[in-house]
């Protein structure tokens, strides 16, 4: 059977006010600022580009070694190395705007006020179409954590407080990215929803560690790092499913998506959109094949709109 363009299923989704022409974006930190991958494919075909975390000031990141490959995945402790807000606005945004691809700007601050300032300035500069607040980076040691505090997203009160403060600073769609290192993912997800988030992003990396038996030293200079890749996918799918049972706001699902079938798994579990993460390291144009593959899946199963499969796992 040949399909004419009108037979193609509708892929457009709306995530907390952000319209995406297809449900595929990139996971923060795995896609630079988009330009790095435009050498391999036209990034304007993506539903959105999610940027590397942006901080108010440039950050040098952690000392090397920052990466170690693990079974079906990798551990990283980059430590939010990034160019900082000013350079992001001056050097990175023009490319993405010229591409006319929606920008999900991932932000990280040392306090709720810093997140709010980032969101405000990004909105003022027209440099984001949605804000993704990274409340869950496992690899930075800020003053808050030095006082013994856990990650913001491991503390529901903190999630609520940070979300409220950021919410009051911007009218852009606000996404909150959460850590899977919690007892019950529903709690921080609900805290984000009740405090004004438009969507939650599940999941950030899982904390992990690797030791070299020969040297008896940790393989990462940061000792521990965040685990990503297909190794974590079943955990991520389960967390998306858990959260989808209780949330009214949409979920962007991520964690080890390598192929279209993986993306479909997340959609069936209840994600409205998905992000391709570490697989872009292995296959720079992985997202393209995933977009095409989702469309093929919908055709094969007789669906005319991707929204028809969101949350439709058959129990």
């Amino acid at each position, binding site marked *: 059977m040949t399909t004419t363009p009108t037979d193609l299923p509708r892929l457009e989704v709306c995530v907390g006010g952000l319209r995406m022409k297809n449900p595929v974006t990139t996971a923060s930190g795995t896609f630079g600022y988009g330009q*790095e991958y435009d050498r*391999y494919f036209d990034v304007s075909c993506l539903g959105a580009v999610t940027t590397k975390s942006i901080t108010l000031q440039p950050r040098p990141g952690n000392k090397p070694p*920052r990466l170690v490959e693990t079974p079906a995945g990798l551990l990283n402790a*980059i430590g939010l190395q990034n160019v*900082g807000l000013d350079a992001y606005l001056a050097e990175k945004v023009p490319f993405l705007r010229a591409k006319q691809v929606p920008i999900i700007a991932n932000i990280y601050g040392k306090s709720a006020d810093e997140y709010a300032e980032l969101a405000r300035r990004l909105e003022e500069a027209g440099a984001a179409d949605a804000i993704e607040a990274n409340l869950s980076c496992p690899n930075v040691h800020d003053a808050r954590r030095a006082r013994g505090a856990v990650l913001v997203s491991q503390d529901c009160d903190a999630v609520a407080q940070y979300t409220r403060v950021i919410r009051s600073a911007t009218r852009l769609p606000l996404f909150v990215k959460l850590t899977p290192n919690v007892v019950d993912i529903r709690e921080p997800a609900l805290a984000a929803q009740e405090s004004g988030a438009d969507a939650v992003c599940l999941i950030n990396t899982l904390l992990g560690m690797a030791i070299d038996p020969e040297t008896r030293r940790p393989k990462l200079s940061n000792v521990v790092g965040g685990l990503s890749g297909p190794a974590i996918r079943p955990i991520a799918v389960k967390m998306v499913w858990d959260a989808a049972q209780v949330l009214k706001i949409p979920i962007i699902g991520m964690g080890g998506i390598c192929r279209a079938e993986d993306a479909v798994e997340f959609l069936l579990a209840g994600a409205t959109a998905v992000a391709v993460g570490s697989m872009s390291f292995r296959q720079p144009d992985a997202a393209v094949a995933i977009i095409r593959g989702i469309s093929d899946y919908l055709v094969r199963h007789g669906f005319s709109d991707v929204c028809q499969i969101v949350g439709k796992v058959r129990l």
Partner: protein
Amino acid sequence: MTEEVFVCSPSIREQRFLLECAVVSNDPVAPSHYRMRLHGPEIAAAAVCGQFCMLEVSKTLQPFLRRPMCFERIHPPTFDVLYKVEGEGTRLLSQFLPGQRISVQGPLGKGFPICSGVRRHILVAGGIGVAAMPALAEELVRRFAAVPEVVLAARTRDDVINEAFFRELGCHVQCATDDGSWGHRGLATDLLEQLKPEAQDCVYACGPMPMMRAVAALTAASGAMCFVSLEAQMACGDGACLGCVVQAKEEREGERMVRVCLDGPVFDARVIDWEAQDDNDAD
């Protein structure tokens, strides 16, 4: 020596390919060492010496990441990579048969700068670091009709690779082995010291971190230019993941960290903070 820090040139080309290349041959050249010749006209035509490519060693997701391999030789339409079997990725690579296809991403990174007006070109390779040198030697001979000095260091005689190749190319070759089974018993840097590098000379080095640190110190003292090809764990190979950074001596454009994949893998030795580099020593 000029005061200006040399920013490595052969122009980083924006051209990238992601192609399935046919394996022409994949043969052992020394114990645990293999050379894979790949047919990839586009990649071979775009590549310069010192650059690298990323090979997908398995169609499954384990191992997950590609393996970075520098171009050992670039002879369009083919190119060679030389590798040592050390882990699962290189073990899988060694099982490829002629005619099979492998996904190659490249060419990547900045290669060796080719400087004119150099009195002597001195190539120093330790262990598998020799993989970076044949393409460079060929380029120097082709471009300047130079007679490069080549220092090859390895554990034992069996591990000395490419000696005959460099001799046939017209290089002046000296070898060092840890056990004295071939050439000088001792280190590459012993031989480099005997060559007495001077300010008009250019040294190119690739090998274990302690060797490169020593080469950098020796050349800095003598005023010779020195370019090193570094290795690092990397995920994307093209500047996005920021996983392969090494510490630079000074901040450049606000960055203390430089990426081996995109800012390198070849660096002016003066750029690198050698004291900060880990030897990954087993005790």
